[in-house]
């Protein structure tokens, strides 16, 4: 039986981290969870979760939520716990998958089969990529990158002890601007294959 492989990909906006995650998923033939995670949960529980998509990867609002004996009224936090439970169930079942963001490097840390990656990029390369992909002007791209990264940092840091993007929190952190998307994927697959030999 194939040994379990869980790849967690954290990423800066515009670094191509998501595309790298997709390529890793394709390379190893394992499922990718990103924005589709809610759809997967909805399908499993036979629920409609379309109206909750706006809450995905958002930190809780402390003024509009309250915690009692570990229970929270925050929809953002509860949605996150729902995702955590889903991912832990998947990991417990022995399934292999790639997961993008969602504090996965922290909540799945206990699994030996986890390989956590953080993808960053040079500022100019990220701006260029965002301008190209979303047809934006430079200033719009700069603003978008700043807003998205701030949102991701706040979300991550409000639920995890270790900081978003801190290299000590991941097995490997690398700058995708230096090798390009394909070069980065190549380097990562080499790293993952070597790590997998250690699992066996």
């Amino acid at each position, binding site marked *: 039986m194939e040994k379990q492989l869980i790849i967690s990909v954290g990423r800066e906006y515009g670094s191509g981290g998501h595309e790298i995650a997709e390529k890793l998923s394709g390379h190893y033939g394992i499922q990718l969870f990103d924005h589709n995670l809610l759809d997967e949960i909805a399908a499993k529980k036979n629920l409609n979760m379309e109206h909750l998509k706006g809450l995905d990867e958002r930190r809780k609002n*402390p003024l509009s939520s309250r915690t009692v*004996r570990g229970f929270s*009224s925050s929809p953002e936090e509860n949605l996150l716990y729902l995702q955590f439970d889903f991912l832990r169930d998947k990991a417990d079942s022995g399934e292999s998958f790639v997961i993008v963001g969602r504090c996965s490097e922290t909540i799945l840390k206990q699994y030996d089969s986890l390989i956590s990656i953080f993808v960053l990029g040079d500022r100019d390369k990220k701006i260029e990529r965002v301008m190209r992909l979303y047809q934006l002007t430079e200033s719009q791209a700069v603003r978008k990158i700043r807003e998205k990264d701030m949102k991701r940092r706040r979300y991550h840091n409000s639920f995890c002890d270790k900081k978003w993007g801190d290299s000590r929190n991941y097995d490997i952190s690398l700058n995708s601007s230096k090798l390009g998307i394909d070069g980065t994927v190549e380097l990562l697959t080499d790293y993952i294959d070597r790590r997998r030999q250690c699992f066996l």
Partner: protein
Amino acid sequence: MLAQVFAVIIFIAMFVFIVTEIVERHVVSLVCALLTMIFVFGIGMHSMEAVIETINLKSIFAKEFWYLSEETSGSSAGINWETILFIFGMMVMVEGMARVGFFRWLCMRIARLVNYQVIPLFITFMVLSTVLAMFIDSITVILFLAAVTIELSQLLKFNPVPMILSEIFCANLGGSATMCGDPPNIIIGTSLGYSFMDFVTNTGVIAGVCLIAVLVYFYLIFRKELRAGASKSVDYGSLPSPESTITDKKGFAVSCVIFAVAIVLLVTHAQTGLTVSTIGCIVAIATLVTSWKYAILLLRKVDYKTLLFFIGLFVVIGGLEQTGILEVMAAFIGKISGGNVMVMIAIIIWLSAVASAFVDNIPFATTMIPIIKSLSAAYGVDLSMLAWTLAMGTDIGGSATPIGASANVVGIATASREGYVIKWGLYCKKMMPATVMVVLISMLLIYFRYL
């Protein structure tokens, strides 16, 4: 003047920190209690006497703390150890009941009694929530009811959200009916010297009338949603039998007896003279002795953070009381109402309800007790009437928003963890009209009965 300024600053800071949840609320209240001791009683008042009076340890050694031979007027000064001890005892008893599977058994038993029919289940679970919350903390009630509701909804194929929302509302309503139903009521009762039956015959009657209105309201707004799943074919055999939910049969029987004794002692405490602190100790000791194998486990499960929160809170409110700030606030309410009792009642009930919808109702009720005492003394208004008004406002107001009461948070979290995420919009759309309706009915009943 300096002491008053310090007291107000500490009080406001405590509220801000509680609301923002930057630090856990028991830490906030204990730190604020320490600051009150240092700045208000020490630097501001230079009064060691105020410190001793607020810590109030001497009350524990007084005979009246355990046994009352005649009626007492109660006391709101300083830490209310009677409340702390009673809540501790009830927590131990409830943990003992939960360990043996009492709550799950009760829910499953009732579900079977109504033949797992969705609408009868909806109505009976609302009534069950109300009745249980009259004696047990609403957090425990919702924790078990919501979990069973979700379990049943998955089998009976109905949306559990309407039922959970209704249960939450009824748990808060049930809490208003008795002295031990909701922490503000325990504090009001022990501070002002009211008995369990005083509450039942006053707030209990109001809550009973309101329950009828609430049953009709929730039935009307949720019936279509619930009926959508009611007609589907269901495999009842896959449901656990009520008996199978009992984890310890002997312990279950003992727990039922202890619970029954607790109810009898509470109902008769005005006649027997036993104070709620004595009753709390009796049920805690009885639970620990009869479940001695699990005594450590039960003691570990007690929510000490809440008890510490109460202790800190009483000291901070003691600071406001000792410096006379609360009398100033009482005078302000009296001035606005122009001494008119109807206006006074309207202000107290709506102010309490609105405040409790957004902030913890325990500090609010604790703050309001000295205020209603001052109002009663200054304007010759019946104190008990103001106490019932305060109890209804604080207990019911909490239902209006997701953050208003502990039961709301626990119910929402339990539903959400199963995929039924309840957002502010949905919650308020269904619960706010019910809250306004019940507060209005309560106010009119108070006018009708006491004026």
